[in-house]
């Protein structure tokens, strides 16, 4: 039965991708160190790319590896290293009593319901969208044609979205210029600031200054160590 309806290599590739995906996902959740979680995430992303190749979505597999493993996970790792939050989290402590059993029960109900829905198999509509048929021998061409004709407006909108994201990230992450107090700054500054500054400007400003000094001291100490080490 198995050999007649589907070929053995396909089944092996599916099992391999499923193992990689699920073990990586479990690793993301249970690793105490965020760096280990990020590395497990790379495993999951590569497994998903393998599943894409198995389903003849070659361009998406390449984009998955380039965008996710190449850019997003690197961004995660960069932030982890930059902030120095790679110390381990105490997973055994449960701040809310009964929080975890409730969460796992809720997710179990959702997963069970979805699998029951798949088993019922009532999701086939059979109606084609406007995008056109999927051509397995030329998936890059078909996808490119769909993106640049049918979905052209959405494509332009994503370009705008990326620009907005870049501007927002710069505004959020940049430091306030020296010599200008936070309340009187005319520039937009970090988007989260103004409302809170109006309420309690002085304590937060001093907090931030202390944090900056602390960070600066740590950085300075690190540099000293590097100079002393050799």
């Amino acid at each position, binding site marked *: 039965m198995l050999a007649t309806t*589907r070929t053995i290599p396909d089944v092996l590739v599916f099992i391999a991708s499923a193992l990689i995906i699920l073990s990586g996902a479990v690793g993301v959740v249970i690793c105490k160190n965020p760096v280990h979680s990020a590395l497990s995430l790379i495993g999951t992303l590569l497994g998903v790319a393998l*599943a894409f190749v198995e389903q003849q979505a070659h361009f*998406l597999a390449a984009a998955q590896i380039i*965008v996710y493993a190449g850019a997003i996970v690197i961004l*995660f790792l960069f*932030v982890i290293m930059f902030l120095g939050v790679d110390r381990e989290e105490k997973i055994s402590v449960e701040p809310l009593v009964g929080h975890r059993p409730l969460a796992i029960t809720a997710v179990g109900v959702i997963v069970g319901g979805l699998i029951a829905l798949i088993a019922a198999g009532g999701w086939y509509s059979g109606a084609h969208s406007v995008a056109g048929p999927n051509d397995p021998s030329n998936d890059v061409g078909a996808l490119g044609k769909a993106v640049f004709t049918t979905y052209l407006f959405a494509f332009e909108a994503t370009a705008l*979205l990326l620009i907005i994201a870049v501007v927002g990230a710069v*505004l959020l992450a940049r430091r306030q210029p020296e010599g200008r107090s936070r309340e009187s700054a005319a520039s937009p500054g970090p988007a989260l600031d103004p409302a809170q500054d109006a309420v309690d400007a002085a304590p937060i400003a001093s907090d931030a200054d202390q944090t900056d000094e602390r960070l600066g001291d740590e950085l300075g100490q690190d540099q000293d160590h590097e100079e002393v080490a050799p």
Partner: protein
Amino acid sequence: MTIPASWYLVLSVLLFGIGATGFLIRRNVLVMFMCIELMLNSANLAFVTFSRVLDDVGGQATVFFVLVVAAAEVTVGLGIVVSIFRRRNSAIVDDVHEMKG
């Protein structure tokens, strides 16, 4: 290519469940972001599977847009994390409780 769609859909559901569990039980903001990425990936896997089964390239185009949105979301989200960390010196969500009424 001859794998039935339901196998991939079940795999996608399991991946989504693991991601949702991690998002609910972890308290490190960065790990919670990674769990969101897991859920996005499970949706992508389901989209590609439906694209193959229904012979419609629209599913693959949707995955392409999801990739872009995920990149933008991570950029802004990590910017917010850096901004909060500068102020609170912590990346644990329980420490950010200033907005509670």
